[in-house]
């Protein structure tokens, strides 16, 4: 009885496992996902800062109105 040497079989399995096309598609997908995450991160940071500014603006306006009415009331007395 003759058996085939295992070397060609291993080589075939290795070849099947390493698919350059699939690897390249994976690389391109990671590349594209990285780009999207980068853009999203940039916009999110700027949006968060803008929201922070808006919240502060509202707080300052409320404080201003409160103080103005306080001054007016004190002057009336």
């Amino acid at each position: 009885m003759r058996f085939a040497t295992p070397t060609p079989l291993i080589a075939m399995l290795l070849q099947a496992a390493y698919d350059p096309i699939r690897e390249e598609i994976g690389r391109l997908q990671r590349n594209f996902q990285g780009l999207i995450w980068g853009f999203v991160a940039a916009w999110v940071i700027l949006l968060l800062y803008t929201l922070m500014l808006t919240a502060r603006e509202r707080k300052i306006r409320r404080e201003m109105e409160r103080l103005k009415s306080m001054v007016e009331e004190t002057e009336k007395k």
Partner: protein
Amino acid sequence: MFAMLALAMVLLVRNLYTISLLPDEVNQGQIFRIIFFHLPAAIAAMLGSAVALVASVMFLWKRNFQYDALAVAVTEVGLAFLAVNLVTGSIWAHVIWGIWWAWDPRLTSALICWILYAGYLILRQALEEPTQRATFAAVYSIFAFTDVPIVYFSIRWWRTIHPQPVFFSKDGSFPPDWSRALLINMVAIFLLYTVLTMIRLRQEQTQREIDYLRRTVHAI
């Protein structure tokens, strides 16, 4: 101010379309397009820190609180833009270098710059008396600016994994459409920076009025 903000938004959104039409960079592929945010954010933050330096020096010289307000406004907005630069850089590094962060001279000096300017804002929170706060903050801002040239020249002074300048340099080899798209994004980001600084500056001025009214109320 609204017109400037609208123009910045229109330019940024329109440019997203232009950027998507550009061909992929040969070695890095699509991720290279992140440069259209990464670089303008860094330049805007650096220019902001230069304005903060000038405003701080002017405050120490003239003792005019308008300069102090300008310094804090540009520094705070600059911090947000530097954060954009650091985060987009980190994402870019993860795709190309396989790591989120490297203790490389450019990256480290930029992070130190961010920490220094965050320290500037923390220092301002810690001081109550307005003149003392403005004086200490101005001196601190001048000190913090010493890191900015180090960030800029770090890629020339030391061996670093961060790439050398590719746009607007004699070694750069980018086609004109890439440079044009970058310039448009730069203009849009500068406009956005200016608008945010103007809003922050107005808030700082209103805060001073509030402080004045508080003193008036206490005096009455």
